[in-house]
């Protein structure tokens, strides 16, 4: 998947578990887990909420890397 993320790092920095992170961004624990594993790409709205909760820019949480052909 071309979208990489550092959500787990930021979550650990804030000292939050997945349940608490989910509560703050308005998503379920499962969705937080899916995003961290790279199995789900959040919508723009959710990505912005995550960045706001982490106190960083969206680009500091999510990175888009082109897949090699």
């Amino acid at each position, binding site marked *: 998947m071309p979208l990489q993320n550092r959500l787990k790092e930021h979550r650990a920095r804030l000292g939050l*578990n*997945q*349940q608490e992170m*989910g*509560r703050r961004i*308005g*998503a*379920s*624990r*499962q*969705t937080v*887990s*899916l*995003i961290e594993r790279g199995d*789900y790409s*959040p*919508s723009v709205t*959710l990505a912005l909420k995550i960045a706001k909760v982490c106190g960083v820019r969206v680009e500091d949480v999510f990175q888009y890397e082109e897949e090699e052909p």
Partner: protein
Amino acid sequence: MNQRQEEIRREDQRYRGRFRRMMLLSLAGGLVLGLSAVKLWGLDEESKVWFSTTVIPVLGCAVVWLCGGVQWIAGAVLRRKSVQSIENAQTLDDEGREAAQEAVEQPLNLLLSLCALSCTSAFTGMGLAVAGFRSEEAVMSGVSVGVAAVVGLWVFLAVMLHYQRWAINFIKEQNPEKRGSVYQTDFNKTWVESCDEAERAQIYRAGYAGYRAAVMTCLVLWVLSVMGIVAGLLSWTTVLFVGIIWIASQVGYIKSAAKQGKSGTSAY
């Protein structure tokens, strides 16, 4: 012809051969089924009646009780597995508890899938079993089988509801944002509304897969129904009901697609 039209023409050409082979295979399959149906048509009336009023009802009754048994045993096993997994994780750190919660999703999903699948199987079995009521030659046994199936269905529904309610409430305990009670008539709507974007995407993808499976099944059932009518085993109502389900699936999809088209979201 412009470049895009040329690409479209080449794409059609690529799959045309396989499509033709599939149509020829279907034609051959239809001929085989048709000849078998004519052979079945040649069966004597006594055999057909015995098959319809004895074999099918007994099979249906057996299916109902089997569903109840499987639901009871599998439900107990999956419940114990889920509860133990969460209890064992209480002494672990956050990461350990999260891993346990992820691990418990599989048995819970399996339990809920089993509830749905066994429910439709049990209802189908009961429907088959009541065909025994119509047997004039074996009235008592036909009624017994039918009554046994009805009782079996009630027992099954009690067991299924028990485990379904437990699973939903267990999920709600682990996920406080989830809403909906199994006793609600619009439980599915309330549940989906409490799901977030990722969960809804999963539900909608599964819904589309279900729609495609329903349409394909209707096509197969239509073929079998027509063969059954030719063989004298089924009445015209079978094809009618298959057609109704087929049309209902299509209309449901078309209505939803049209609604989304109006709201600006593409359905394709």
